[in-house]
């Protein structure tokens, strides 16, 4: 089950948020977005600061990932931090080279959604936000075509609305 999506730009502003199956409404959405970005930001910087060499950074992220989610076996050493699992939800994380962060929260049983996040970046974000003449850089995304396209991709994921057992 997919709960919600966050898109953060380089400076940490949440430029897009949408939720689907979320049962508990957030008491303070802006606070939640700030906390999430802060958590990811410090996690990344902490890991790279601890690292004695540039290569160990990746290994640290992998170790962290294994500690949090020992069942996962779909690891790609090139991309580092994929997801974070707790008992009630799983946070999928994809960061582009231009530092745009795509975050999707799902239930913990959902497998890796990295490819879908990449697809959102490629065929929705770039096509209908970046190429949209009316979009102001770093502003909140309100483009109609992007929203339709994003919903199409998210709802096509087989785990979109499966009920928890």
């Amino acid at each position, binding site marked *: 089950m997919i709960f919600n999506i966050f898109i953060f730009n380089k400076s940490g502003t949440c430029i897009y948020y949408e939720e689907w199956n979320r049962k508990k409404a957030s008491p303070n959405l802006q606070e939640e977005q700030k906390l999430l970005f802060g958590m990811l930001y410090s996690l990344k910087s902490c890991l790279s600061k601890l690292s004695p060499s540039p290569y160990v950074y990746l290994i640290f992220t992998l170790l962290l990932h294994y500690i949090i989610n020992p069942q996962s076996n779909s690891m790609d050493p090139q991309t580092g931090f994929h997801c974070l699992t707790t008992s009630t939800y799983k946070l999928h994380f994809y960061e582009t080279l231009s530092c745009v962060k795509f975050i999707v929260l799902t239930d913990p049983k959902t497998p890796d959604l990295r490819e879908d996040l990449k697809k959102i970046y490629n065929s929705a974000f770039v*096509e*209908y936000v970046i*190429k*949209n*003449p*009316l979009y102001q850089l770093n502003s909140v995304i*309100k*483009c*109609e*075509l*992007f*929203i339709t396209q994003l919903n199409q991709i998210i709802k096509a994921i087989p785990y979109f609305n499966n009920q928890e057992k």
Partner: protein
Amino acid sequence: MSNNNNNNNNSPSNDSPLSVSSSVGLSTPGINVTSTSATPSFTGITASQISSSVGNPSISPLASFSQSLPTSLSAANSPLTNTMSSTYHHQAISTSNLASAINPTSNTTASSLSTASSALATANSAAAPTLPQKEISVSCFEFLYIEMIDYIVKSSRDKTQISKKLEKLGYKVGHKLVEKLTIEQQLLSEVLDVVKFICKVFWIAIFKKSIDSLRTNHKGVFVLTDQRFQWLLHLSFDPNSTTKDCSDYVYFAIGLIKGAMANFGYKSTITFEIQQIHSVVFTIKLET
């Protein structure tokens, strides 16, 4: 020059009085026009007829292998759907016996060549020496286009000044582009041929697709429809916003057509209308 901007899905105001009869070709010009009728009747000219009678540009690299066979050109070059292409094929076959003899061989050579692209290139250049294809990135151009319009909008006082400036820019580009595109073009004797040239060769050179439909009343009014206008494809509005105006992104194209027509010696007034979001209808009126 009056520009008719209509972003709602209303039916076009200048379209309703025109009765459209389907697929009456060039061979019978003006057959539907009676001298007494108050509303001019339009004869429909389908894209296939445009393509079959107007010259052969070298277009998409995918289709370039069939350039040596002019009879199959209209089908191979068409960026339209497969069903449309197949009708082109039928037409080509029926018009010429030679075509039916050549077409199958062209298809087989094409399929055998498509596996080796280097062989394809040599075969192509040996068969028909054409101008080399120069290509630029679509995204790169579109970003430049967006910035150009942004700059002009910011440096203008009002809407009419924006449209005038953009049209002027497009006029010059269209004028010069025609010089380049007509190098291998045969003589265009009638104004309809000129408009067909714009629909096919000119539009493909700019957008890699032809105009989707062309209608005319044979009295100097031409209605051109592009159902997927490239410069509006990625554009979308805030669903909550009240002003939904994207006409700034079409004025340049108006200028392009105007410049092209002017270079052929026809003075024209052009209006346009944006239907749905990507579909643009251009109406060319010749000035006498």
